[in-house]
């Protein structure tokens, strides 16, 4: 079933938490809402779930206007940021809550709960209380609880935010697997982590300050970000000021061959892993080097642009220049694109 948001606006008192959001999520599609803290992602999700009432706009599920329908009647699965397991109910009873509310026969409840706990790998914990579980385990139970009622729409609010890096990677795997087990469910996945969005989403909606900035298929958004904000938020692109004259693009006075000029006030966008150190590039100075295991992150300043920090990811193993040394920075034209400067 499709979820449609039309011009959805939410106010909390005088603060506007969500401004005119238009978004459609098709059945079987995963859309990630990606944005920094306070950008209105959770608010958008709460509006779809029915936890907050939009001050303007309509929400439709499968074509039916549900804007005034209470949450209990929407049949949406929700996993909230804090999991919100019911503390006095055992894991199995948490998962069974929705089924019992729907007055399913006892045998079916038992079977479905077992099935869901099995799916998230929590069968052995059925008799535990939530407080006896780790964060990742609580997370799984919350997902099982939401999916037990076979919702056509699943909303996940930053489900991995509270987990440590290792667990996060594991859970990301599990979520991908889970995605394949519920092929027809429309999923809205809220996150502030671009890696999660890229790994899980068919399309990514980038949010900022209560507004939708860009929305596009993940690969497109990554390869050709439509705005400077999206470029830096999704993949941490370098944004360099450029001078455009006739059909030539120059950075700090150096022409870049092969980069097509564009109208307007633009920035040059290039990913840290695409920048290379080699001969014949822009003269720059290495300011810092950070070893990150598989790669090293170098921070440089191009001569003539002392205020702009350029990040470069180079594979580990090779020799690194000394910090403070003069380097030559190559910007391969196929990795460069121009994005409207706008507001950063």
């Amino acid at each position, binding site marked *: 079933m499709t979820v449609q948001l039309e011009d959805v606006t939410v106010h909390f008192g005088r603060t506007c938490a969500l401004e005119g959001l238009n978004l459609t999520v098709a059945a079987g599609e995963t859309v990630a809402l990606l944005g920094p803290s306070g950008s209105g992602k959770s608010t958008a999700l709460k509006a779809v779930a*029915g*936890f907050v009432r939009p001050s303007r706009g309509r929400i439709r599920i499968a074509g039916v206007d549900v804007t005034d329908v209470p949450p*209990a009647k929407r049949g949406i699965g*929700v996993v909230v940021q*804090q999991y919100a397991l*019911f503390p006095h109910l055992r894991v199995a009873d948490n998962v069974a*809550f929705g089924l019992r509310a729907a007055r399913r026969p006892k045998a079916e409840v038992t079977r479905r709960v077992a099935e869901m706990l099995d799916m998230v790998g929590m069968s052995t914990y059925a008799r535990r209380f939530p407080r006896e579980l780790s964060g990742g385990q609580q997370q799984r139970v919350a997902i099982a609880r939401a999916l037990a009622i076979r919702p056509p729409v699943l909303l996940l609010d930053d489900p991995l935010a509270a987990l440590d890096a290792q667990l996060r990677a594991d859970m990301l795997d599990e979520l991908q697997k889970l995605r394949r087990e519920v092929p027809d469910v429309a999923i809205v996945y809220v996150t502030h982590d671009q890696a999660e969005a890229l790994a899980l989403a068919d399309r990514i909606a980038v949010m900022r300050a209560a507004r939708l900035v860009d929305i596009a298929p993940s690969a497109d958004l990554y390869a050709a970000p439509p705005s400077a904000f999206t470029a830096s938020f999704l993949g941490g692109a370098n944004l360099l000021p450029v001078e455009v004259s006739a059909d030539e693009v120059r950075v700090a006075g150096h022409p870049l061959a092969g980069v097509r000029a564009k109208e307007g006030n633009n920035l040059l966008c290039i990913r840290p892993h695409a920048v290379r150190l080699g001969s014949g590039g822009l003269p720059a100075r290495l300011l810092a080097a950070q070893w990150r295991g598989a790669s090293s992150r170098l921070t440089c300043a191009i001569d003539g642009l002392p205020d702009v920090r350029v990040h470069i990811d180079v594979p580990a193993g090779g020799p690194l220049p000394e910090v403070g040394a003069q380097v030559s920075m190559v910007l391969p034209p196929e990795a460069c694109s121009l994005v409207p400067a706008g507001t950063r």
Partner: protein
Amino acid sequence: MAVEALNFQVAPSNKGRQSKRSLWLLPPILLLAALVVYPLVLVATESFTGGLATWREVVGSTEFRNALIRTIQISVTSTIGCLIVGTFLAAVISFVPFPGARIVSGVVDAMLSLPSFLVALSFTFLYGTAGVLGSLAGGFLTTPWAVVLAEITFYTPFVMRPLLGAMARIPRVQLDVAASLGGGPWRVLSKIVLPEVKPALVAGGSLTLLLTLNEFGIVLFLGARDTTTLPMLVHTKGIVMFDYPGACVIAVVQILLSITLYAVLRSALGGRRARLD
């Protein structure tokens, strides 16, 4: 002193501080002994002035047994009523958004400071023979139900106060999730809210039970014929009939009843808390 005698091993500075601390404890303990324990001891001795005969006579009387049963009946019924009304009101104030919620919860706090006979007095205006609803209520005030209703009216805030606090601590998002799973208001209240506020419910309920057990003002003011409770009997015997030993026997029973109930509730509550942590 005792502390010094026992703790001969502690460091001198520590010993000094400890004995100083026990000195601080002395005035309140003496005060407590003079004002509370001593009168109670007097009451207990007075009850034995006639030997065990007074006890046998009083405890054996139907008058006493009826009062004991009445007291417990009224107290238990009132407490159950307070729990039902209090839970309902607290849930509405906590979870149904309406503009005056804060004012209402302020009124609840104010109610806690009112004397109980005020409720009884207002009842005589409402339901008394000359009162507004007098003709309709038709002798309502002379039944024990009048006392029960008055006690529910007066003691419901005592249940609501801890409940409001406990309900405010339930994360809203938990209720949201429960609703999104298809839980209607009744199911969310009974399956999520009530289990989570159970300690507050037990605390408020046991406080109410203790207070209604010892309630005097309301019973006296409503003065119904059938509603002689233990405190009323103490009053009648001691003040009206000058039967001091008899009054003291009942008073001792009353005290024992309260203390036993308190001890039982304390151990039940303490056990629960220990299990939760």
